[in-house]
């Protein structure tokens, strides 16, 4: 829970983007059926992608993207000071997202590969989740953020209720939807170690789970690796798939 209670009148909401693709913000503009209701319950006071203007204080700050430059670190501290509640929005903000794949290689190699001799022009840090720098009150996971989860959290916040993240695996939701197991179809899947909350959307439309919602809190990584290898991946390839969205969480885990 947040330290400070929300104001009783309309909460002031601000939306910020850091290093990412802005797809989560776009997903907010894609609430066509709910957008007018959302606007009836909050005042949006700052949102660079959609409006002009700045605000000094807000009740809820939604933060998209990972932190990857010194400027990001400065800005996120500033936002934390100005807001009562801070929500990390989407995989990049919650875990570092796909950006964190670069962390699996020496940062100097990565910079040199991209910018060559000009590498020092562009300061960079490892791609970090927001929670590694400031306190995060709530997460909305997924790549892009899971819309049903955003609406659940949003409703809870404006009604002053608590919000609890799911902590079972995607397999639980996939079974409830009575899908054929992805492994049975001759494909691989990261559902067994990935945090539910998406209603197993990808596996329901025939794709494998890429792990975009991050890991459950006590994942059996060794077991997952074994299953992936049993289904045809090399150990190296299994880890590549696991690290796509979870490079930060898997840092230091024994292969």
């Amino acid at each position, binding site marked *: 829970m947040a330290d400070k209670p929300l104001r009783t009148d309309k909460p002031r909401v601000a939306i910020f983007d850091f290093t990412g693709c802005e797809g989560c913000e776009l997903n907010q503009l894609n609430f066509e059926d709910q957008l007018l209701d959302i606007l009836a319950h909050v005042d*949006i006071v700052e949102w660079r992608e959609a409006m002009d*203007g700045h605000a000094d204080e807000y009740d809820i700050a939604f933060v998209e993207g990972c932190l*990857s430059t010194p400027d*990001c670190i400065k800005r996120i501290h500033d936002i934390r000071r100005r807001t009562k509640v801070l929500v990390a929005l989407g995989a990049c903000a919650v875990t570092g997202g796909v950006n964190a794949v670069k962390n699996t290689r020496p940062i100097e190699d990565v910079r040199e590969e991209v910018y060559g001799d000009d590498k020092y022009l562009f300061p960079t840090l490892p791609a970090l989740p927001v929670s590694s720098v400031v306190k995060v009150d709530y997460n909305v996971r997924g790549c892009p953020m899971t819309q049903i989860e955003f609406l659940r959290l949003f409703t809870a916040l404006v009604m002053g209720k608590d919000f609890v993240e799911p902590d079972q695996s995607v397999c639980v939701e996939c079974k409830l939807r009575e899908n054929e197991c992805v492994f049975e179809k001759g494909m691989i899947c990261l559902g067994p170690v990935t945090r539910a909350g998406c209603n197993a959307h990808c596996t329901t439309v025939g794709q494998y789970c890429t792990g975009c919602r991050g890991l459950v809190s006590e994942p059996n990584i060794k077991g997952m690796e074994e299953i992936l290898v049993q289904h045809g991946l090399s150990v190296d390839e299994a880890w590549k798939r696991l690290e796509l969205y979870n490079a930060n969480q898997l840092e230091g885990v024994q292969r």
Partner: protein
Amino acid sequence: MSRNLDINVEHLTRVEGHGNIVVNMREGVLEKAQLEIVEAPRYFEAMLKGRSFHEAAIITSRICGICSLGHQITSLKATEQALGLEVSEQTVLLRKLLIHGATLQSNILHAYFLAAPDFLGEGSVFPLVGTHPEVVVRALRMKRLANDIGDVVSGRAVHPITPVPGGFTRIPTRKELLELKRRLVEDMVPDFAATVDTMEALAGAIPDFTRETEFISLRSEDEYGLYDGQICSTDTGCVPDTEYMAMTNEHVVGHSTSKHCKVSRSSYMVGALARWNNSHDKLCDVALDAAKRLGLAPDCHNPYMNTIAQVVEAGHCALDAVAIIDKLLDDGLKDEQPNQEPTRFGTGVGATEVPRGILYHEYTYDRQGRVAAANCIIPTGQNLANIDDDMKKLVPEIVGETKEEITLKLEMLVRAYDPCISCSVHLLDVDFIE
């Protein structure tokens, strides 16, 4: 007029990504007029290196949420060419339907939500909820339907799920397609007509500015070319898409983390206006009527008219989407599995018209089907030099106006290009050295 002028718009609003407009004039002499790109780089090449061909499109679609469908389709086309994967006619039709949905969505979002507030003297679309509720509700209804095309056909409009190398993991049902068609005919067509009325009322406020430039887009002889075609220049004519390096010529400039491009002149323009200038003869009558009413004529050199060209094109996408659904249903939907057995491992190029212009992906795969080299050239990157050249001509022409008026016109100019700065910076352009 002898004047000192300093304009510095930091983190321009209502565009995708982070850019600054910087103009300096000293005693009437323009010293600087440019769009600085300050977006944080994301090192996509580090993510792609050694990745399986199954993952390439999943990763490159994350370059940009707004353009995710365009990146995905372009990536799949390049991968399929590199690996010799044939796709069915049904796959091609479903992809064309997806491109229509994504183009509709993006063009409507830009015209109503990002550009229109400037013409009404507002800072965002939100005040319009109170003053013009029927317009906002209409825009939301159009956007919803456009997104539903993505949700139904690709599993999710932002970062699509079902399009994979060789086909789709799920084919939409007949019932789903019939419902999309019903809404396109019953809702989208009248909403488009009303959109033209609304834009006609605003079109008078479009700044009168002309700078002759080169326009580059795909052109197909069979249709209004979005999914494929030849690379066509208003200066030099058409060449195959494998010639894309010569038709972009990327180079580094000091004020931008994104590279610039040029072909026949110091700059060129891509996007809806380029498509209009190269392929207007392939548009349907409804779109051509809209163009007439909105004052868009062939060989238009006013970049502010790009927004109008986007609206015109939206009408074509809506009606052609209906035609594609009819064809899919007439042919009978087939429950096909994606063709994922490579017949070779080499290099492939994909070129697609995405909302902001022509997008190129190129990949080379090793014999294990892993990415060995990758290159993406992004529409907004191609437009950056053209935007700078526009600003250099525009500022002296309007230097007699107030600083606020000049700033607004510059912001409107950049917004007219509907730039996608995340895309332009997150490009990958590296041959991996093992």
